[in-house]
């Protein structure tokens, strides 16, 4: 018996034509592998974000890695002291590209209320940061928001970065309307 051959005109509907970058970014967007650099109180809220109630896996970013070599998203959750600085740098350097950084909480963003001899006044003096999450500690929703905004920025290279809460209605990226500082 002769095998039925697919008719080429019909299968054209099942082909998607795109740029390779877009396809790869689409894949990256929903499979972020975060490594958490948790040092202090913010790390406890990170734990809450991964636990059942907030459930980070709903957003496709739950494969928490503890080896930077397997991660593409660094979440810095907690105060970074000067003693910790070379370690943070090293961890960041060990991550393969492309990689992103979320700075979670007042301490990581700016030193928080530890304006003193021991504390690095913002991790962006050490490594590049893609998104800053305000709060001391930020609520889990705020961290989720940053992750969603980051995912959005991966597939929308022109989207604004900096603070979370980018606004994107109808697929059009606009500058954030809450007066955010864009990185």
């Amino acid at each position, binding site marked *: 018996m002769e095998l039925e051959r697919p008719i080429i005109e019909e299968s054209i509907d099942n082909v998607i034509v795109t740029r390779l970058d877009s396809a790869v970014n689409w894949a990256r967007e929903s499979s972020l592998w975060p490594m958490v650099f948790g*040092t*202090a109180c913010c790390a*406890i809220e990170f734990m809450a974000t991964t636990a059942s109630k907030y459930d980070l896996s709903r957003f496709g970013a739950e494969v928490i890695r503890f080896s930077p070599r397997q991660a593409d998203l660094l979440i810095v959750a907690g105060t970074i002291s000067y003693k910790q600085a070379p370690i943070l740098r090293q961890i960041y350097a060990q991550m393969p590209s492309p990689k992103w950084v979320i700075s979670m909480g007042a*301490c990581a963003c700016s030193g928080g209320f530890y304006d003193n001899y*021991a504390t690095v006044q913002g991790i962006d003096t050490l490594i590049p940061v893609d998104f800053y999450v305000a709060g001391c*500690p930020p609520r889990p929703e705020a961290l989720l928001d940053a992750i969603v905004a980051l995912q959005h920025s991966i597939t929308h290279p022109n989207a604004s970065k900096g603070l979370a809460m980018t606004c994107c209605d109808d697929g059009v990226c606009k500058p954030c309307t809450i007066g955010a500082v864009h990185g």
Partner: protein
Amino acid sequence: MAEALLLHAHKIDHTTRATFAPQHLIEVLTYLKKTLHFDQLLDVTAIDEKPMKMVYILRSHDFIDSYILTTSLDETHTIDSATSLFESAHWLERETYDQYGVHFVGHPNLTRILNHEGFVGHPLRKDYPIAQGQMCHETLDLLPQLQARLESKGILTRQSDGTYSSGSRDIMYLNLGPSHPASHGTIRTFVALEGETIVGAVNEIGYLHRGFEKSCENHTYNQIIPYTDRLNYCSSLANNVAFAKTIEEMLGVTLPDRGIFIRVMLIELSRIIDHLVCLGANLVDLGALTNYWYLFNPRETAYDFLTKLTGARLTNSYMRVGGMAHDLFVGWEEEMKRVLADVEQGMGDTLKLIEHNRIFHDRTQNVGILTPQRVRDFAISGPNARASGVPYDMRKTAPYYYYESFDFDTVLGSVGDVYDRMMVRFEEIRQSIRIIRQIMARIPSGAVSIDDHRIVLPPKPSVYDSIEGTINHFKLIIDGVRVSAQSHYSAIEAVNGELGFFVVSNGSGTPAKVKVKAPSFTAMSAYASMIEGGQIADAIATLGSINIIAGEMDR
């Protein structure tokens, strides 16, 4: 003879204070330890005055009495080391050296502990500018420290050219942390392995040192409350209370009964939610992930309660000197009942999985043993001490806040291994639930804060409607609560053990010095010796079971 070396000794309640000449340190400490049975050295610190002062805080064998010794140093800032008498002195003296530049003669390893090796100067000296950070470019090489330890244990021998040889033994070095899932991101352990066995270990801490004590010297008493939240951030409210209580004792004020009951209830709630994280994380470290969900979920119910009460989930800042921000919310009883029910449910589910679980038993029993003697040597307190069978519970030994009137048990272990430490925490959750239920039945009505507007803020109507009220409010916010010049040590049974504050005031609204006696700090100093002889996996289980909270340890 040695008794005569103690000058100006006077005893108030259970605390004796005395001074002595610095050259007599060892005689004085030996006398206190051997004759008077003050066998635990809780804290060592300095006060940067002219001349520089040293402070030693000791606790008696029965845990009831305290002894606070002070002495003045000459301008060389040198005193003998107490390491030959007390194990806990090793790290406490290192910290005093690091922060104040006091030199301890005879200390085996007088190096920095909280700040990095390259740090120049001593940050808690009054002339060190608070905001002067110093960048660190390299992590410390712990190999020489570990080799010295291995040499002292006879595993390595030093060659004539200064290098070490292990003879026919095959020693491998392994670094664990600080960026390691089981080390809370802040604890570094460097181990020497022979096969699978850890034959030697050293620790490095300070990765979360964020200048708490220096920041305190630059803020008013009430502004310090948010900083105390972030000491043990798994149980912020307990730290709030410990600090506020210390200052209230200095001011000589006592809270109304309702305020005290609320405080006790919140301390016990903190104990519950802190133990939940400790146990959940410890079980994750053992590979038992499901329990983490079971134990973390009730925390969310507690967070809802706390958010309603204080506006924050984790860092509550609810206490004030002289009371608290406001009374409980309407309907709190129902919410509290739900919290307790959820906790019982989560705990029950977890215990069903592990209580008779062979793997759990094998991983935890007879692992990381802490003997009662070492508990005292290292001045360890809290559940870690009680798991070793040491009946050290300040709620029983030196009751405060009506603890003597509540019906609850001190939970004791028998072996002092990982299993006991975990099971003691499970049982302590039950006991805390008992206390909270008694409070709910007995809580009196009335005010929650004292009625003295030199200490607590005046009511809002008076602030808005009268010039006296406005000025009163303004002065309290700007100047802070004024505390007459004195020094005072006070502690509560916080979640990890005795959490104490040694505060020096100078009559202004800002303390001259605040030193935290942190239970995690002394517990951590015993860790290296606890894991020697075990395997790497045991070390991970042990670390989880002593519940080191870096915010409290490194401050």
